[in-house]
């Protein structure tokens, strides 16, 4: 059974610097990093010390709240430094890489021959578990749960996001095995959503409930798809995995190795030649981006422009990142830029600019806030980019007031911060919607669990 997903509300931001369909290798970084901040809500308990030698796929820390959830080294090498911040919070674990990886060898397995518990144990032990996220709350899945269903969105609609179909073109076998493994984990179905227009390379994937997705961003957001296919009720758990991670899971079963290599799109208006690169997660940003960008006053984002995290040139690629975006910093003044129809180079989803008259135009936005934070005045604009059956402004207000009952009633379990990313972008009052939702979800974890 499949159900098409058609969405009207939303916004496709057309930006300059789309990746050409070419893949290149990136020189091996000297130092790789694992950042606990990539795993929201996880407090790491270290297993290794500075100076220890680790193999690729060897456990370096586990989650304090769920000891079964382990995090592994992406490369083999020596633990160079465990960087700590205030109150000794672990910021990142730096691994000085060997010239060639030595892997932890797991046995090759066919998930179809395994029981649910065996698949689970294998994913936990190999360090692949963190690829599985849960809704509600948008955190790493609890290994004790059995989810209602598992959702995979193989259609990325975020601005300049890596093209899933291109990235996984040659990894379909691993992808299928990954799907088989995931199917063991749920009592329900594995839902795979693919692009509606044109022919999808995933059309022959077996063991899934396939959905064709049509419409503007955030149609590709897994949360929007869940809301259309089978909305989450209070108390229910569903899991989500991104397609590249499904392939990594599949590769684990096929080869017995945890291979953290992924194909990352390097995009954005400041990138000289936007294209794809094969790179191991945690690699130095310098090795991926260095020498490939035009300006020097830029922001490098691990992820897309709406939901990614800011990284420095001497920082490292995030655990989940499939896209690295480089855009100009916007720390400049714009004279009379607030006038209606002024600054045609700055896109506006509202009709107070000229953008709506030039639907095909591509923009090179910078990081300027384009105004200052103000009280909530304008209504209706949030609803225009929220395809879920949710009252976004009312929910955000309930979140700001920490009114748990109301948040529950208005659908907090159905949303993740990324679903509010376009509201971050379009809202007149410059409200930080994603941050508000993230804090509200954290409150719910604490109060409801």
């Amino acid at each position: 059974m499949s159900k098409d997903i058609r969405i009207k509300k939303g916004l496709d931001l057309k930006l300059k610097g789309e990746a050409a369909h070419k893949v290149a290798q990136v020189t091996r970084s000297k130092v790789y990093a694992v950042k606990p901040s990539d795993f929201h809500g996880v407090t790491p308990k270290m297993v290794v010390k500075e100076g220890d030698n680790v193999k690729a796929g060897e456990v370096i820390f586990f989650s304090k709240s769920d000891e079964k959830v382990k995090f592994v080294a992406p490369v083999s090498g020596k633990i160079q430094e465990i960087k700590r911040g205030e109150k000794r919070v672990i910021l990142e674990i730096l691994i000085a890489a060997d010239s060639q990886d030595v892997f932890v060898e797991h046995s090759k397995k066919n998930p179809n021959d395994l029981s649910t518990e065996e698949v689970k144990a294998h994913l936990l032990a190999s360090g692949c578990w963190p690829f599985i996220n849960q809704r509600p709350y948008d955190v790493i899945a609890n290994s004790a749960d059995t989810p209602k269903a598992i959702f995979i969105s193989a259609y990325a609609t975020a601005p300049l996001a890596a093209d899933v179909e291109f990235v996984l073109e040659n990894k379909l076998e691993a992808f299928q095995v990954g799907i088989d493994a995931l199917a063991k984990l749920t009592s329900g179905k594995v839902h795979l959503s693919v692009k509606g227009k044109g022919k999808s390379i995933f059309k022959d994937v077996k063991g899934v409930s396939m959905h064709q997705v049509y419409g503007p961003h955030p149609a590709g957001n897994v949360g929007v798809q869940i809301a259309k296919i089978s909305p989450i009720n209070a108390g229910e758990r569903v899991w989500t995995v991104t397609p590249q991670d499904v392939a990594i899971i599949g590769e684990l079963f096929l080869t017995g190795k945890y291979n953290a290599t992924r194909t990352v799109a390097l995009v954005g208006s400041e990138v000289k030649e936007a294209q794809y690169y094969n790179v191991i997660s945690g690699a130095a940003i310098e090795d991926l981006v260095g020498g490939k960008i035009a300006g020097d006053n830029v922001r490098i984002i691990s992820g897309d422009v709406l939901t990614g995290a800011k990284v420095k040139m001497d920082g490292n690629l995030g655990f989940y990142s499939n896209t690295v975006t480089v855009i100009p910093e916007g720390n400049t003044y714009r004279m009379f830029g607030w006038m209606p129809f002024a600054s045609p180079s700055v896109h506006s989803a509202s009709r107070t600019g000229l953008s709506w008259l030039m639907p095909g135009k591509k923009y090179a936005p910078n990081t300027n806030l384009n105004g200052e934070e103000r009280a909530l005045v304008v209504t209706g604009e949030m609803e225009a980019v929220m395809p879920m059956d949710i009252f976004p402004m009312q929910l955000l207000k309930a979140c700001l007031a920490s009114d748990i009952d109301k948040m529950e009633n208005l659908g907090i379990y159905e949303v993740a911060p990324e679903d509010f990313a376009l509201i971050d972008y379009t809202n007149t009052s410059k409200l930080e919607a994603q941050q508000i939702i993230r804090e509200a979800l954290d409150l719910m974890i604490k109060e409801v669990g």
Partner: protein
Amino acid sequence: MKFLRDKIDQIKKPFEKGRKFEKFAPAINALDTFLYVPNHTTKHGAHIRDAVDLKRTMITVVLALVPALLFGIYNAGYQHFIQIEGSDMSFGNLFFHGLWKVLPMIIVSYAVGLGIEFAFAIFRGHEVNEGYLVSGLLIPMVMPVDLPLWMLAIAVAFAVVIGKEAFGGTGMNIFNPALLARAFAFFAYPTFMSGDKIWVSDASTIDGVSGETILGSLAQGKEVAYSTMDMFLGFIPGSIGETSTLAILIGAFILIATGVGSWKIMVSGVIGAALTALMFNAVGLTALMNFDWMNHLVVGGFAFGIVFMATDPVSAAQTDKGKIIYGLLIGFFSILIRVFNPAYPEGVMLAILLMNTLAPTIDYFVVNGNIAKRKKRLAKSKQLKSA
């Protein structure tokens, strides 16, 4: 341009954190941000942001008000000369007379209102919100041209302090501040807000002026001396900005085209008023009931109210469905009050204020529909599980 920017940065130095005038930073920032969009960059969430901000939104409304304002100024002069001087005057003379009357009102309104807004911003330590840019222009436009400036000032102070800041400032107010100012003046100084002497400037200086509004004379059972075209174009006595439906329609077009004003409220408001008026036309017992439904739409403050006041997003219903109900009811009550209460011929003001109080209730029911749906879904899934 670099020179100007440097100069401003230099002026702003003493207002920085930890410096002498730190507390007054909101005031200087408000002025600076009118010249330049500041260099603030995104810190959380989405890294890029839309070009629209509250300043741009508010200025769009001000632009939409300009046609009605210009006509209002002209009409103030026109009414004065045809009623009192009785001679043909040049366009320039008419306009200048209007300007002479209206400009001081605008200046007083902005000076008093923005003064209070700045004071509250400094006192509370937040930036100055742009909302008053619109309210400050709306208030003089809904007043009679002869209203003494001190009364205007008091009405403005009341609207901003009691109507807005007491509730927590911009975005928190329950009532439309501009309408509140008018309602305050209306009940506090009734002799200056209604009657037949106040709508034409200097009318009180001589006797025998037919300076009544159309609704006022209808309420007294008199004949209407104006054609529908006069009413539509606006060559009639009335509050400064309300008379020309044509100029207001231009404003409505700007608001709808830019998406700043809710077309849902405007359209449903017009439909609500038209249906109610048609209903009364069918009954037809009094002069006001018999007043043609089309004339109802073009006369008095209805058009101005529904386009510029009812669409104030803060005091209106906030949900899409709610906006339609809200608009319909404003239309309905406007005509109802006009027809049944001759003491308040200007029904639209009271209708909007009434609906301002009811808007949260409308939204409550709309949002509750969504909540009920969610609860039903939960109950159903529980049932399935236990079965």
